[in-house]
């Protein structure tokens, strides 16, 4: 029930840090894009929905008490483009999640990166996009330095 209450409080938020990849509203009223935090815990729920996917996880705080954290992702429309599906994150998984903290809530963040127990990483589609752009920039720089024929 507590989980449900927390879930109902979830805001429909935009996940965005490095590259604007569009969503149904702005990111800045809810999250501080200039800071990131990392928490370690167990996934209890992953909802692959629009406009934003959501994950709940149980995290032990410094006093050893279990807290419920809420992680906001881009929407299903966006994540499917990056190859995600409803089983990409499974309840029971132990994960370490990095995100932008919310301004007004201490246990909520916008997703930046997830590391699974086996060390594999999950990043949003924008990471692949940025990598392709960096390759394009390298090629542009190379063409610039080549002597004209």
């Amino acid at each position, binding site marked *: 029930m507590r989980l449900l209450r927390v879930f*109902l*409080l*979830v*805001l*429909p938020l935009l996940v*965005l*840090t*490095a*590259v*604007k*990849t*569009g*969503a*149904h*509203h*702005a*990111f*800045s*009223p*809810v999250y501080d*894009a*200039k800071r990131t935090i990392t928490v370690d815990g167990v996934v209890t729920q992953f*909802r692959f*929905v*629009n*406009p*934003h996917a*959501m994950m709940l996880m149980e995290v032990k705080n410094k006093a050893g008490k279990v807290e419920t954290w809420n992680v906001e992702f881009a*929407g*299903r*429309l*966006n994540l*499917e*483009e990056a190859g995600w599906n409803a089983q990409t994150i499974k309840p029971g998984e132990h994960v370490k999640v990095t995100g932008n903290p*919310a*301004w*007004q*809530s201490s246990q909520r963040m916008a997703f930046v990166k997830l590391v699974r127990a086996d060390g594999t990483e999950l990043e949003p589609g924008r990471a*692949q*996009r*940025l990598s*392709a*752009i*960096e390759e*394009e*920039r390298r090629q*542009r*720089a190379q063409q*610039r330095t080549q002597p004209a024929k």
Partner: protein
Amino acid sequence: MSIRLGTVLLVLSAVACSQAPPPPPEPPAPSKLEGMWSDPPPTAVGTFCFFSCTDAGIDRLNALLDDPANDKRPFPQLQAEAAKYQTDNYLRPRMTEAALKTYPLDPADDPGFLRCEPWGLSKQMFAPHQLEIRRVSDDQIDLRYGEWEAVRTVYLDGRAAPAGPPSRLGHSVGRFEGDTLVVETSRVAAGITWWDAQHSDQLRVVERFTRSDDGDTLMLTATIEDPWGLREPVVAKKIWRWAPDQKITPYDACEPATEFKKGTSEP
């Protein structure tokens, strides 16, 4: 006798033919634009135009990318600089005093954020992610968007707008000029532009959809006019990539905002 029977059969068959229902109309020939499109190619310009962009912004971005002094700067920084240039040198100078009074709108006041109200035309036509173009009849094309699961109907018979107040997505009529679909929209309720300025119900938009020669991308050039909010038209662009495997999924989990901060701006 046999001649008489033949004559009777001929007459009966002629009568039967004349009473047969007309054959079903030929389905309209698909245009080059029909099908599913989605997010732009992962290029610098494609990403800059993920939502919408202008030639002024694209030119600035290309100039920044071509300057060796910027080679070590991260792309998001160059993207933000080009976007600021676009705002300061293209968008702001085109806005009227009336529109500038509230520009830029506080993102925390966005009705989509506060109340899950779907976008109006000026944002919806540039919505990220899927756009499906489908000819549903001789005189109607539907534009189906992933964002908000919005559907716009484009009438190809030039019909007049229905009576009544302006609507969120307005009234759209269209025509083909060669392979380009030209859509003219009016009767749009006052709302918010893609660059987060207010617009009036006098907004008028002409969209031109064109498929690239290689078939991989769809380009939109939209000319936006609003005598209340704009001194002169804004010409905006957008790019989609051909994505036949993409699907539009339910958009049914929006929750109104409850915890947020006013007065922020996008990074």
